[in-house]
């Protein structure tokens, strides 16, 4: 199969020494196996994420993503824009759709972009990496690349919010999306059929500003994974990954629990199943080591 190329928007958390740098590592390993080339949008900027609304008005927020999209159209011609971060995907796709459907907004955006010599025409699609996997490859093709099926690994597929709502993936239901479970199954692992917290919010950015309220929700997300026999939680979202993994000690103290549940990305599972090693799969980025998954990586 010929190499597939995409215009890539990594986002702030995927940078070196940032909170989701381990996500980026595993995405690179996965893309290497799938012969996918990610062409980074030159000098991309932050999308404004979920809480940009307080300091930035409508056009200020949209213009941030419009700059990335305009540079992408100019530098990565004809390539769909792909994001790995849920919030990046959401903000960028929202910008595309809002500008495309509102002529006045598009004129305003281009008037601002003209200040720095850019122009946006909304020519390319904005997609999440899991859409690329599902739509451009499909589960069967993704399965063909598996070298080490993750036999017996029980995975709680934690989809969370923004890789599900408001846009949805592959036309699936918002209440019970199946794509993550299907990816898990494709890698030879066992998805939890009755993981009731799969689309529960973790608090998102409010884990910083309202830690008690967020950690109460995170506690339920982890507890349900344990209750249904999970070895590990997998997610497509960097904020979900961080929130569910890094506060487990604090939650244990508050609620008298003994949580020690590893939380990885779908791409971590895929890298390992595709035969990549510990470090290439980003497993060294785990604060709670994914011990059972490490065994497959060491095989």
């Amino acid at each position: 199969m010929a190499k597939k190329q995409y215009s890539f928007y990594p986002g702030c958390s995927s940078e070196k020494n940032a909170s989701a740098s381990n996500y980026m590592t595993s995405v690179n390993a996965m893309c290497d196996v799938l012969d996918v080339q990610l062409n980074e949008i030159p000098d991309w900027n932050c999308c404004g994420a979920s809480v940009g609304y307080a300091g930035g008005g409508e056009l200020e927020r949209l213009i941030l993503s419009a700059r990335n999209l305009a540079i992408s159209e100019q530098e990565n011609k004809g390539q769909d824009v792909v994001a790995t971060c849920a919030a990046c995907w959401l903000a960028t796709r929202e910008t595309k759709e809002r500008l495309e459907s509102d002529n006045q907004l598009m004129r305003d955006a281009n008037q601002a972009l003209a200040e720095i010599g850019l122009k946006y025409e909304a020519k390319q699609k904005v997609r999440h990496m899991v859409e690329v996997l599902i739509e451009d490859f499909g589960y069967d093709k993704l399965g063909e690349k598996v070298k080490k099926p993750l036999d017996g690994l029980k995975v709680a597929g934690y989809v969370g919010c923004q890789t599900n709502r408001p846009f949805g993936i592959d036309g699936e239901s918002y209440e019970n999306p199946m794509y993550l479970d299907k990816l898990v199954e494709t890698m030879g692992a066992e998805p939890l059929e009755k993981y009731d917290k799969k689309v529960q919010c973790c608090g998102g950015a409010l884990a910083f500003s309202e830690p008690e309220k967020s950690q109460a929700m995170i506690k339920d997300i982890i507890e349900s994974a344990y209750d249904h026999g999970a070895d590990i939680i997998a997610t497509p979202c960097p904020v979900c990954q961080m929130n569910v993994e890094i506060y487990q000690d604090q939650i244990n103290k508050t609620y008298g629990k003994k949580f020690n549940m590893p939380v990885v990305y779908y791409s971590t599972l895929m890298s390992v199943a595709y035969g990549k090693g510990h470090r290439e799969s980003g497993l060294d980025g785990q604060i709670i080591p994914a011990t059972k998954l490490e065994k497959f990586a060491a095989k």
Partner: protein
Amino acid sequence: MNDTSKPLDAIRKMSMSDGKTAMVERYRNHFLKEVTDNVEEGEWVNMCMQCGVCAGSCPLGNAWAHPPQEIFMMIRAGKRQEVLTSDSMWMCTSCYNCIVRCPRKLPITHIMHGLARYAERLGLAPKNQPTRKFAMMFWDNITKTGRANEVTLGIRLYFMHGFIKGIKTALKMLPVGLNMIKTKRMSPLGLVAHQGCKGKNDITKLLKKAREIEEARMKKH
């Protein structure tokens, strides 16, 4: 009936900008019109049919003094001061549950963000609301260099309620931070070596122009 007439003097006294007083004068007794004209996606407010699905779907629903459908009704009832000074909108986690479930397809998440922004712009948002503070820090952080600096953002966050509380929070968060450093998902070097965008100046120019356009649009109403 309408609450803008009685506390009008009070609002005027607290008024932090001419813009705010101008808004009160211009939309006297027409808060719904004010929201329709000035709040992102505000033109949808009138479409709410008060079913309450949004309130039941919100993960932090119990933390809202007024859930979204109540906010919508308060806007229609002209409760300007109560709505704009409320901390309710600031409880939004951006989970988008309300959007996908609303039978009338109101973009509720965006309206809540829009109301929060409008309240902030008028200086009416509750000053010490933690998410408001964090969100303002975040905007400042990302617009300075074009990219988020997680290290400086984290430190400012810990100290947002003052120095003494900050030390306590920092100590509580220390193990989490050290874990992040150990796994190379954070670096203290971020304090000094964060690069950001090469086109920092472009971003400043772009945002300045966008704000100009937006202000002009608001004045037109």
